[in-house]
């Protein structure tokens, strides 16, 4: 471990280290991304979708997003399903999410606040 020689260096280390404990604090104020991980979801490729979301979050250094899973909600035909829940906003559910769509959802919806209407669950 390197010696911390100045206040600036200490602050730099604090910034880098924030990710270590970020997930354990103030989770109620963060955007929640919920990936359907029932047997149907996993079979349809939910894992790849989730890993893509995590990868994108890491690449873009987002610290206000949490990713969780949920079981089957009964719409197996539309799996992988991904919910995006921003604080104080209604839940948006995306269907048939793959690696590429997942990355777009992070960029467009989570970062730029634009819901991608074409991929949202149809009114059935």
């Amino acid at each position, binding site marked *: 471990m390197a010696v911390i*020689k100045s206040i600036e260096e200490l602050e730099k280390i604090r910034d880098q280290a924030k990710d270590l404990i970020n997930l354990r604090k103030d989770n109620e104020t963060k955007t929640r991304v919920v990936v359907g991980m029932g047997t149907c979801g996993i079979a349809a490729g939910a894992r790849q979708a989730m890993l893509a979301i995590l990868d994108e979050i890491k690449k873009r250094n987002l610290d206000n997003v949490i990713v969780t899973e949920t079981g089957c909600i009964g719409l197996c035909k539309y799996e992988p399903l991904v919910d995006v829940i921003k604080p104080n906003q209604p839940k948006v559910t995306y269907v048939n999410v793959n690696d590429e769509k997942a990355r777009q959802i992070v960029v467009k919806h989570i970062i730029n606040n634009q819901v991608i209407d074409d991929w949202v669950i149809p009114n059935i």
Partner: protein
Amino acid sequence: MEIYRAHVLVCKGTGCTASGSENVMEAFQKEIEKRGLSKEVRVVQTGCLGLCELGPNVLIYPEGSYYCRVKAEDIPEIVEEHLVKGRIVERLLYKEHLTEERLRSLTDIDFYKKQKRIALRNCGLINPEVIEEYIANDGYKALAKVLTQMKPQEVIDEVKKSGLRGRGGGGFPTGNKWQFAANAKGDIKYVVCNADEGDPGAFMDRSVLEGDPHSVLEAMEIAGYAIGAQEGYIYVRAEYPIAVKRLEIAINQARERGLLGKNILGTGFNFDIFLRLGSGAFVCGEETALLASVEGRRGEPRPRPPFPANEGLWGKPTIINNVETYANIPPIILNGSDWFASIGTERSKGTKVFAVGGKINNTGLVEIPMGTTLREVIYEIGGGIPNGKKFKAVQTGGPSGGCIPASLLDMPIEYDTLVQAGSMMGSGGMIVMDEDNCMVDIAKFFLTFTQDESCGKCPPCRIGTKRMLEILERITNGEGKEGDIELLENLAKSIKASALCGLGQTAPNPVLSTIRYFRDEYEAHIKEKRCPAGACKALIHYEVMADKCRGCGLCVKVCPTGAISGERKQPHVIDQEKCIKCNSCFDRCPFGAIKKA
């Protein structure tokens, strides 16, 4: 840095380690590895979460799900359900005592709702063995602030204004202590941390050291800067192996990072900290005895003055504060004295950590704002008394404190109210007693402890507590005499006035407070040769009530001395000569046919 979608926090405090959290953590690591989730889910060891009764405790973020009494064999299910499928494992969630409701998140639990965690801010949140996690949660920020933005006197003023008082027992204003040491003449000064926590049932300091060792190191450095010291010593009990290990790791990491040693953060400030292990003598928690022990001499107290602030370690000006006191310092510096002074009451600021134990549902560690009532702590946070029994008294302040009766349950917890009630804050042990506890017996228990731990230097403590203990033994054996209570009171008064150190001066408190509130129990023992709580063995005997006994023979089976006999389906009898009053038959009888008298 890797981003993980979930953190599994496993409590590795002493309580949970004892109930097997080591195995739980290993099982998590293995299962997560097996499932190929190592890059998504992080397993972290952490300090005490507070509910030691329910250990091993596991906390999973981001949901904040709180799982209790987790066993290694539960892990595959938790990983499969919670971490893979996102379904919370209901059966392992914390269950509220009153409503029997299973709660999904830590923050919903009554036990936590009334708490305010300042000294315990990092316990159960960070990994105590990783300095970066401490830094991430504003660690060493207060040190950076004092070194660059504050003069030593400003630091002392800030602590004074906060109203912080010593958390180790006496409640002396911390800022004043620092001022005395700062004013004392001399080039060499020392900062000492008293981590010789010895009260029976108290484990606040241990939990802070295990869960957040860096906060103590940071605060000692701040104290060193404030008074002009360059060296600090932590005197910690050798019986706290986990705390010692984490302190050693923390000190080494701080040195490697240049946060201890020469020219800290490039400011020219030098400070280093060394550990000294105590061997478990209770008196070494007394400051002058502690200093003697650090110096390598026999741990015996000496008269004050001179106070350590003028003549302390190796005769140099020294400040000596308790672990919890130090843990409050960095937040005071960062958030300001006004913030701290806004919490608590007029004369007792901030929060206090209590180790709650005895006859209570939620045994564990709580941190509450000063001024919270005993009733709130015992019933709302502590979950009340188990098995529908009646509350009788609560003992605070350990062997130096006293017993507070039910009539004072609505008293706010403050330094001064506790003293008025004949007890004291002490270091924060809180032992709850129900109707089955005999108050004379409790007084005898604590006096046995102080008598054992008396260092023997001064006669009032060495001989006086011995005489008091003999009287109490007489009373509990049914040999009490008229005038014994007055004799106890007289002896207590002389010991309090003449003993050399705090240990002796406060030793009679448990006796005095129980006489004050439960004099009738003493009188019942002495005059009627009766123990109302049925706890003093010499004063009770067991009988079979013939009309209720159905002759099932269960009592015969559990009796370890073969004292019970009788024909099947006929009332049984207890041979009083053979009976050792172990209570086994009383507990076992399904018909309530055994009578304690």
